[in-house]
């Protein structure tokens, strides 16, 4: 890894773990060098604007939208569960989310 790199292989591994993506050794090495190159290219944005420029998160003015609290038809439990990898008793069946000890 070049001395002037923006992001290390270890850091990419840490970020991938945060993003819940397992990466093999080869894939990690390849991705780390590409992401380093991309960060280098996009860092140009840091030269563009001073502190006086407000950030923009959305192209149109976004207001909170509400509707009358009226019950309208929605998906049936069967339809909502129709694409689930596993279901049981009208619920999503998922792997354990707490450790054995919990």
């Amino acid at each position: 890894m070049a001395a002037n790199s923006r992001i290390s292989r270890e850091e990419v591994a840490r970020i991938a773990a945060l993003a819940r993506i397992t990466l093999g050794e080869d894939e990690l090495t390849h991705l780390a060098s590409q992401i380093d190159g991309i960060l280098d290219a996009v860092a140009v944005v840091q030269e563009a604007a001073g502190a006086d420029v407000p950030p923009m998160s959305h192209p149109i003015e976004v207001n909170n939208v509400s509707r009358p609290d009226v019950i309208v038809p929605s998906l049936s439990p069967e339809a909502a569960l129709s694409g689930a990898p596993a279901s049981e008793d009208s619920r999503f069946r998922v792997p354990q989310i707490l450790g054995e000890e919990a």
Partner: protein
Amino acid sequence: MSDLIKKGAAELATLIASGEVSSREVTQAHLDQIERVDGAINAFLYVDAEGALAQAELADKARGNGSSSALNGVPLALKDVLTQKGIPTTCGSKILEGWRPPYDATVVTKLKNAGVVILGKTNMDEFAMGSSTENSAYGPTRNPWDVQRIPGGSGGGSAAALAAFEAPLAIGTDTGGSIRQPAAVTGTVGVKPTYGGVSRYGLVAFSSSLDQAGPCARTVLDTALLHQIIAGHDPKDATSINAPVPDVVAAAKSADVKGMKIGVVQELSGDGYEKGVADRFAESLAILESLGAEIVEVSCPNFKFALGAYYLIAPSEASSNLARFDAMRYGLRVGDDGARSAEEVMSMTREVGFGSEVKRRIILGTYALSAGYYDAFYGSAQKVRTLITQDFSQAYQKVDVLVSPTTPTVAFKIGEKSDDPIAMYLNDVATIPVNLAGVASMSLPAGLSEGLPVGFQIIAPAMKDDRLYRVGGALERELHKQWNGPLTNQAPNLVGQ
């Protein structure tokens, strides 16, 4: 039968409305063409022949009952990023393989209500991330003009389906150019409406503040007719604009540019733009000038930061949006052996289910949003967005629309840039500023360079989508005189390949 597929949507709609042909015949002709050529093109991920013919029968009945829809009975190809109830929707990803959504996107509901016949779902870069359709988990789509070349992306399937006469209409989605760049390199027409102009309900989200569905066809009028049907306010999309849809059909028909001021964006020319692209662009400008438009030069100095801002904002939003693919509620689940935790199953599923471009962008976005880097990357990109929007507002004080080439080059060869993300990202340099500001934009064919299509981009202020159609319609009318019809009529005949 086979000459039906060469006709445009407006003409087909007229023939169907008059009873000269049935929607069933038109639909069958397109299904036959898909059967003949899609082995070579791979535009479709799923063809719903049975469903399409059933919709066609309904359209034929609606005709008998006096349907008023402008596109009743006309077939369409739907990008596989929009949900259609009961029809497989993959977004070009293994992680959604086999998923059949339990609901229709609002765009799909509007199409069905208008009697438009949905032929099937088209190929795309995985989760719309890419400019070549090579990132599809189901193999690349090929450009009908040269099957060794890319059809653009991410909506390469929709654009190729039009150019290969597999459908007269298609729906695309455009986050950084995914409607316009494929339109440019396949010699077709594509419009990214104003952000909020078309509902995103049922559009699988990539970058929510940039994504916009839009119409694609082979002519400006056909595109306008489709635009009119899919646009409009939708209470199911909180970012949908609650205002009347600009009359794009009237604008396409008027095609009058007399007295309009057209600004040429200086920053979207020069280095990196091929000579053939620059030449076709200059010729198109001369045509518009001869029709009475005034051509002026406009500078948008902050556009040079657009690509950098886009490749921070889009991955950041994607890293959040794609967290929903967690192996719990739908799609793929890998490694659930009863012993592994949900987190382990999630990580293993995402390793297997996502392709490399999607992983690259999720990791990039997660990094850009992480503590310690947020201000330097995501925060700076958001400021650039403000500057680019200001560039547009200042330009529109002087001109009615802006124009540029849609892409710097014609279609490149499959495999040429597939492992060089930065070279790939440069394809979108002229289309990306539009999405950052949420304005409206069209690409239409400007001619050929060494036998390959070149696109002409028009950019209008937000909610002035009608101006795209006035300018596009005027340019197209003159070019069609030169070409004796749409440019796609010159595409190689694929039958027998």
